[in-house]
């Protein structure tokens, strides 16, 4: 906030009417994220060199964490203060519960949740067997229906988001490393096209806000690069967990457009593309945003 105030002053002093070159105005915070956890400190990469395919666009990619205010950033520094941990605990209860049609549990097949370490960092990915593009929600539902004989969980249901929280946390601190070539390539291209399409009556694309204008204020909102390495995130405004799929719905709705559905082919491809723009940042597991 202090940085922003300074910017506003220098802005007023600038010759008015000058075309203001966006990103230089109010950048990401100068800050480092080391999270205190039960297993000791975990360093999070919130700022790193942009992946090669973005070379003409960005030098540096930033986690959304660097665009939030001091109080919100602080809540993510210690698991004890992170409201998302409640949902991780709920996910842990579900993990151990004998909830399957024949009493199966996640733990029965996978042992502890730490067996999921690394998964979140490479998703979405193309499933080798089916050739389908899979987000974490798809893997979870494959077990819920195929191996436990239950009705599929809603993409944005509480059950689903609790489990996303638990499994994502297992990859905390690992670099996002989503494959964009081979069988992923055509899904990636589809996601890229969506990213640059100007939807809705406001005719705005993801890139208009998160590429052209990150660092700027859209009214009181400090625009980030729209990275998904922090997801699922505890959103203070909603007092609950928000998945990347849900965030996409919200952002497209804000352009006065007909959104795609959470979990649709389009938004799964978009998640692959957006995740790949964050290759090199680390998974935050469960982050805090406002």
């Amino acid at each position: 906030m202090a940085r922003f105030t300074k910017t506003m002053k220098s802005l007023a002093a600038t010759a008015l009417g000058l075309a203001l070159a966006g990103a230089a105005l109010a950048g990401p915070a100068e800050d480092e994220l080391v999270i205190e956890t039960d297993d000791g400190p975990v360093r999070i990469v919130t700022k790193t060199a942009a992946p090669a395919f973005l070379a003409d666009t960005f030098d540096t990619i930033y986690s959304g964490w660097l665009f939030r205010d001091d109080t919100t950033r602080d809540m993510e520094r210690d698991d004890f203060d992170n409201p998302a941990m409640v949902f991780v605990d709920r996910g842990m209860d579900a993990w151990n519960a004998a909830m399957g049609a024949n009493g199966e549990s996640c733990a029965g097949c996978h042992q502890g949740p730490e067996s999921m370490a690394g998964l979140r960092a490479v998703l979405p990915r193309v499933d080798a067997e089916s050739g389908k593009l899979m987000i974490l929600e798809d893997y979870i539902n494959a077990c819920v229906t195929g191996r436990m004989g239950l009705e599929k969980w809603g993409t944005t249901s509480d059950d689903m988001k609790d489990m996303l929280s638990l499994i994502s946390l297992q990859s905390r601190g690992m670099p996002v490393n989503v494959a964009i070539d081979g069988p992923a390539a055509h899904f990636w291209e589809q996601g890229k096209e969506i990213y640059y399409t100007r939807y809705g009556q406001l005719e705005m694309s993801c890139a208009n806000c998160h590429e052209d204008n990150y660092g700027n204020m859209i009214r009181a909102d400090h625009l980030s690069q729209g990275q998904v390495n922090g997801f699922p995130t505890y959103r203070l405004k909603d007092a609950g967990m928000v998945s990347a799929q849900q965030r996409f719905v919200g952002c497209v709705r804000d352009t006065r457009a007909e959104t795609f559905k959470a979990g649709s082919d389009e938004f799964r491809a978009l998640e692959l593309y957006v995740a790949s723009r964050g290759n090199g940042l680390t998974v935050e597991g469960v982050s805090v945003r406002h």
Partner: protein
Amino acid sequence: MNSHLWRVSAMVTVIATPAICETAPKDVSFAEGAVEASLTGVPGDPANGVKVMTTNALGNCVACHQIGALPDVEFPGTIAPPLDGAGDRWSEAELRGIVANAKMTFEGTFMPAFYKVDGFVRPGDGFTGKAGTEPLAPILNAQQIEDVVAFLVTLKE
């Protein structure tokens, strides 16, 4: 049948009365981005223009623009050029064109078109996220545009 027709025409009259010589969004003619004729023939009200520009559900211009003449607006955006001096830089006709459809003045601009009703990709029904049917209602009506223009012309350095 008769009474049904009557009801329909009565509704149309109610909606259309204040806008007898209003130019519909599709009929606006742009000359190099500028729109010479008033959209309504009724002089704009600058005070209402300010309201339109600073209300989220209306123009919400301050989401992107700062306006020195309106120091009470909290958290104006920093995306677009400040509007101070716009009345010096642009004629009334040019300002009307920019507000109606800024894309006619600035190719590919981020600024939304406030008086445009079709030609959108996946047009929505307002902010519901549901599908809308084109032609949509324009974001601002003709008189609101005139009111905004009436305020913009006063922004002289």
